[in-house]
C-alpha cells in the first residue's frame, strides 16, 4: 500500500471508525490517530503486530499480523484479545494484515504465533477495555471502579445502566491509552480455555473461503509455466506455434525460469503449455541421484563433522564400555505437498506491483519483489488470502517472483498456477539424512556414552548455509543437539554433505529426522538391556545433572511421558500381533510431548490403530484448536512414516503427484487422543511440535509387535 493511501485509510479509521488501537511487537499500544501523526512525522520505530478497531455500530475488528494456513491463528489470536476486552465473540470480525511498515514481521513459522504474543495481546484487550470503561464512567459521572464489563457492554451495577461498546467507541477513542490495565485471572476466563470452533468455519463449509487460487481481479490472465527441468540447464529452442493456436491462449513469454503460456483461463494455459515444443541443453553435472546421495550420507556419517554438543569424553567412554550398540537410521527426501499448489496473482503496472499470494512470509515476498523490480517496498502491496496449507513450503518466495515476471512481460494481472506435478517436482525438499548412533553400556547396563552423528545437507528458504558456520550442528540438528536425556558422555555432531537441489525445513523443521533416530535408539538400548522403554526414559530424565532450566524441562518431559503411558494403558495386555511404542521430545526447549502408538503388523502390512498424545504447551487458549493441531501433526508424521518419499534420478524428482507420492488417507488414520498438561507458565507452540516423535513411536511399536527393528522411513515394505 502506498504511504498516501495508507495515511488516508489511517486518517479514515482514526476519524470515523471509533476506537482503533495498534499493538506493537514490543508491546507498545497506541491509537491509530497517533500512528498517523507519527507516520507523517517519520518513523518512530513502532512495529505493529495487531490492530483492534471498535466501530460506533458495534463492529469489532481484529487485524492479525500472522497468516492463516489451517493452524488457527485467525481464531486463537483474536480470542486472546477478546478475552481481556470482554468482547462478545459473536460480534468479532477478523482480518489478515498486509505487510509493510504497518506490519513489518508477518512471517508465520516456527509455531511462535500464540506463544510470542499471548501477553501483549492480553494487555491490548485489557487496555482497550479500560478505555471503554473510562468513557462510560465519564458519561455517567461515576467512578470507573464502580463499572464492570460483560460480553461487549460496560455496566454500572449500582444504577443498572449499561452501554454497548459500539456506543462508547468514539468517546473511548479520546481517552488516554493507559500504560497498563489489570489482566483477568485464569478463573475469570470466559473464552481462553473454552472450545471455540474456527473463525473461518462457516466460510469454508459454504465455499465462500478464498485461497490464493481463488483470487480474481478485473482483467486478469491465467498462466502456466514450463520450468527448467534440471538445475543449470538452458533453453536451446522454443517452438510455440501450436501453443499459440490453442483457443484462449494470449501469449507465450520467456521468463528466467522457463516459458510461460498466458491465457484467458487456466485450461487454455495448461493446454498451451502442453503444446510447447522445448529443447533444453546443458545442466549441472553430475545429475543428482538420490540413491547415490543417500549412500554417500551413510559413508559420510563415519567422518568428522561440526560438533553441536560435547559432554565428557565420548570416545574414551565408548572405548571403555563393556558393551557397544551401533545403528544407522535413514531418512529420505520429502516434499510438502499442500493441497493448494503454489500460485500467485501479480499485477505490475505504473512502477508499482500488487500481489495476492498465499504466503507464510508476506514481508519476504514484498522485499524480494521490490528488489526484483528495482522498486521501493512501499509500492509493492501484498494481500494474503487464506493458505491451502503451508507447512514451511510457503516460506519460499519463488512462486511469487515468477508471477511478477510474467505480469510484467504481458502488462496485465496474471495468476501463475502450479500444477500438482510442478509442486511435487519443484519443491523445497525436506533434506535426506543418515544418522549414525553409538551407545556404550557398562556391566550393569547403564548408558555411559551416547554419540549421534547426522550426515545431511544444510539450507533453508533463503539459501545455503555457510559450511564454516560454527553453529551448523546447532542450527541443523534439532532433536540431536538438544537431546533431553542425561548421559555422562555424549556428542551430537553434524556432517555436511551438500545436495544440489532446493531444500527447506518442513513441519517440525529438522526435528523429525533426528528425533526418529534418537527415540528409536533409546528403544534399542531398552531392548538390549531388557528394560521397559518408558522406565528407561524416565530414568534417563531423572539425572540431577544440568542447571535449573534443564531440570525443569526434564520434569515436564517426564510428566508427559507418564501421562501418555497411563492414558495408553502402557504395559497392559494387547491382542496378539499388536505392539505399543513410545517416543518423546522437548521441542526447541519449550513444548514437551510424548506419544504412544499402537500398531499391528499382518503379512508385512502395518496398521496404526490408536495414537495417544500427551503435550505440555502451557496454558491452552483453545483446546479445540490444540486438539486439531495435534491430530494434524500426527497425520503428518504418519504420512512421513507410512506414505511416500521423493527420489531423484538424472537430476529430477521421480514422483509427480499424490498418485506416486501417497499421503495418509482416512482409512489409515488411527483414533488420535490428545491429553494436555498446562505445566509451562506461558503458552508455547503446538503447530509443528506433534510431528517430531510420530515416526519413532510407530517404529518402536513395530518392534514391540514383531521384534523387527525398522531403521528408516517411510517403512514401505520394510516391516
Amino acid at each position, binding site marked *: 500500500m502506498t504511504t498516501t493511501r495508507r495515511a488516508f485509510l489511517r486518517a479514515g479509521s482514526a476519524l470515523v471508525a471509533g476506537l482503533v488501537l495498534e499493538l506493537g511487537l514490543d508491546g507498545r499500544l497506541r491509537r491509530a490517530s497517533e500512528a498517523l501523526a507519527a507516520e507523517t512525522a517519520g518513523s518512530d520505530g513502532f512495529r505493529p503486530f495487531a490492530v483492534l478497531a471498535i466501530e460506533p455500530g458495534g463492529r469489532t475488528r481484529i487485524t492479525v499480523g500472522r497468516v492463516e494456513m489451517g493452524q488457527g491463528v485467525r481464531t486463537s489470536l483474536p480470542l486472546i484479545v477478546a478475552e481481556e476486552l470482554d468482547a462478545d465473540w459473536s460480534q468479532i470480525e477478523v482480518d489478515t494484515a498486509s505487510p509493510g511498515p504497518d506490519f513489518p514481521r508477518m512471517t508465520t513459522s516456527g509455531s511462535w504465533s500464540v506463544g510470542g504474543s499471548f501477553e501483549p495481546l492480553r494487555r491490548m484487550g485489557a487496555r482497550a477495555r479500560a478505555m471503554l470503561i473510562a468513557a462510560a464512567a465519564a458519561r455517567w459521572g461515576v467512578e470507573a471502579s464502580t463499572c464492570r464489563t460483560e460480553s461487549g457492554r460496560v455496566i454500572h451495577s449500582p444504577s443498572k445502566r449499561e452501554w454497548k461498546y459500539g456506543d462508547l467507541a468514539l468517546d473511548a477513542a479520546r481517552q488516554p491509552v493507559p500504560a497498563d490495565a489489570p489482566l483477568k485471572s485464569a478463573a475469570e476466563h470466559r473464552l481462553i480455555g473454552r472450545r471455540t470452533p474456527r473463525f*473461518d468455519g462457516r466460510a469454508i463449509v459454504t*465455499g465462500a473461503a478464498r485461497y490464493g487460487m481463488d483470487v480474481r481481479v478485473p482483467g486478469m490472465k491465467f498462466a502456466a509455466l514450463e520450468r527448467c527441468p534440471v538445475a543449470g540447464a538452458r533453453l536451446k529452442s522454443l517452438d510455440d506455434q501450436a501453443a499459440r493456436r490453442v483457443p484462449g491462449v494470449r501469449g507465450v513469454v520467456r521468463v528466467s525460469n522457463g516459458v510461460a503460456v498466458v491465457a484467458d483461463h487456466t*485450461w487454455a494455459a495448461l493446454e498451451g503449455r502442453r503444446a510447447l515444443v522445448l529443447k533444453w541443453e546443458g545442466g549441472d553435472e553430475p545429475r543428482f541421484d538420490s540413491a547415490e546421495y543417500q549412500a554417500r550420507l551413510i559413508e559420510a556419517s563415519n567422518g568428522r563433522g561440526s560438533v553441536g554438543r560435547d559432554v565428557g569424553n565420548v570416545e574414551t567412554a565408548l572405548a571403555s564400555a563393556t558393551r557397544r550398540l551401533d545403528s544407522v537410521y535413514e531418512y529420505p527426501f520429502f516434499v510438502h505437498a499442500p493441497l493448494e499448489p503454489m500460485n500467485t496473482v501479480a499485477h505490475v503496472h505504473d512502477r508499482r506491483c500488487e500481489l495476492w499470494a498465499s504466503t507464510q512470509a508476506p514481508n519476504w515476498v514484498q522485499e524480494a519483489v521490490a528488489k526484483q523490480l528495482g522498486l521501493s517496498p512501499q509500492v509493492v502491496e501484498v494481500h494474503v488470502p487464506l493458505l491451502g496449507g503451508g507447512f514451511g513450503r510457503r516460506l519460499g518466495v519463488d512462486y511469487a517472483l515468477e508471477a511478477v515476471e510474467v505480469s510484467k512481460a504481458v502488462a496485465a494481472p496474471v495468476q501463475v498456477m502450479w500444477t500438482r506435478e510442478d509442486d511435487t517436482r519443484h519443491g523445497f525438499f525436506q533434506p535426506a539424512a543418515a544418522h549414525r548412533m553409538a551407545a556404550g553400556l557398562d556391566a550393569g547396563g547403564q548408558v555411559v556414552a551416547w554419540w549421534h552423528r547426522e550426515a545431511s545437507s544444510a539450507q533453508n528458504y533463503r539459501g545455503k548455509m555457510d559450511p564454516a558456520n560454527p553453529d551448523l550442528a546447532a542450527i541443523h540438528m534439532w532433536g540431536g543437539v538438544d537431546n533431553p536425556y542425561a548421559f555422562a558422555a555424549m556428542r551430537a555432531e553434524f556432517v555436511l554433505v551438500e545436495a544440489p537441489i532446493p531444500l527447506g525445513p518442513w513441519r517440525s523443521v529438522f526435528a523429525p529426522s533426528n528425533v526418529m533416530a534418537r527415540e528409536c535408539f533409546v528403544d534399542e538400548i531398552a531392548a538390549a538391556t531388557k528394560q521397559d522403554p518408558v522406565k528407561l526414559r524416565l530414568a534417563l530424565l531423572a539425572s540431577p545433572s544440568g542447571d535449573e532450566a534443564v531440570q525443569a524441562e526434564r520434569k515436564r518431559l517426564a510428566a508427559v511421558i507418564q501421562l501418555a503411558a497411563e492414558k495408553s494403558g502402557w504395559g497392559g495386555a494387547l491382542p496378539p500381533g499388536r505392539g505399543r511404542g513410545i517416543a518423546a521430545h522437548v521441542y526447541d526447549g519449550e513444548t514437551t510431548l510424548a506419544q504412544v502408538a499402537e500398531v499391528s503388523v499382518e503379512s508385512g502390512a502395518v496398521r496404526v490403530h490408536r495414537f495417544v498424545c500427551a503435550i505440555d504447551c502451557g496454558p491452552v487458549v483453545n483446546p479445540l484448536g490444540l486438539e*486439531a493441531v495435534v491430530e494434524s501433526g500426527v497425520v503428518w508424521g504418519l504420512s512421513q512414516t507410512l506414505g511416500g518419499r521423493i527420489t531423484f534420478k538424472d537430476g529430477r524428482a521421480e514422483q509427480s503427484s499424490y498418485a506416486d507420492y501417497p499421503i495418509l488417507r482416512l*482409512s489409515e*488414520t488411527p483414533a488420535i487422543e490428545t491429553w494436555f498438561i498446562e505445566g509451562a507458565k506461558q503458552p508455547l507452540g503446538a503447530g509443528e511440535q506433534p510431528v517430531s516423535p510420530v515416526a519413532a513411536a510407530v517404529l518402536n511399536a513395530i518392534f514391540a509387535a514383531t521384534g523387527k527393528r525398522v531403521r528408516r522411513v517411510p517403512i514401505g515394505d520394510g516391516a
Partner: protein
Amino acid sequence: MPRYSLVVNATPRLVDASPDMPLLWVLRDLLGLTGAKYGCGIGVCGACTVREGATTLRSCQLTIGEAAGRSFVTIEGLESAGGSAIQRAWLDADVAHCGYCQPGMLLEASALLESRTPPDDAAIEQALDAHLCRCGSYPRIRLALKRAIELRRAGKP
C-alpha cells in the same frame, strides 16, 4: 467455439468453451464458482468433487462436452440443495483446518447421507478414502459424519 448449457446450483448457465475443457475450469474460470478446488487434476485428491443428484464426480475428470445438459451442485449451492445438516455437523465438529479440501469432502459426505441405508463405518471409510487432506482433518470428518447420521436417524434434519 461451441456453446454448452448446463445447470449449476439450480441455475441454467451457458458457456462457450472447447469441448475438452474440464468442468472444474468451467466452474472456476468461466462461471466464477471457485468453491471446487484444483488439487491434482488427475482425479486422485477429490478437492474438485461436485454432486450430480445423489452421486459425486470429479470435476477435473469430466469435460464440458460430457457435462452439457446435466445438473450439478457445487459447495456454493450445497446449503440450498439440502446440505445444511452436514454443514452444521461439520461446524459442530470443527472439522476444517486450512479448509482447502473441504468442499470435496462435504459434497462426498452429503451424498453419503442421502444414500437409502444409513452408512456404517466401512461405508464412510470407503466413500471418504478417495479424498485427501494434508492437514489431517480425518478424525473430525469421522466424528461429523457419525453425528450427522445419528441426527438423521433420529429424524432431525
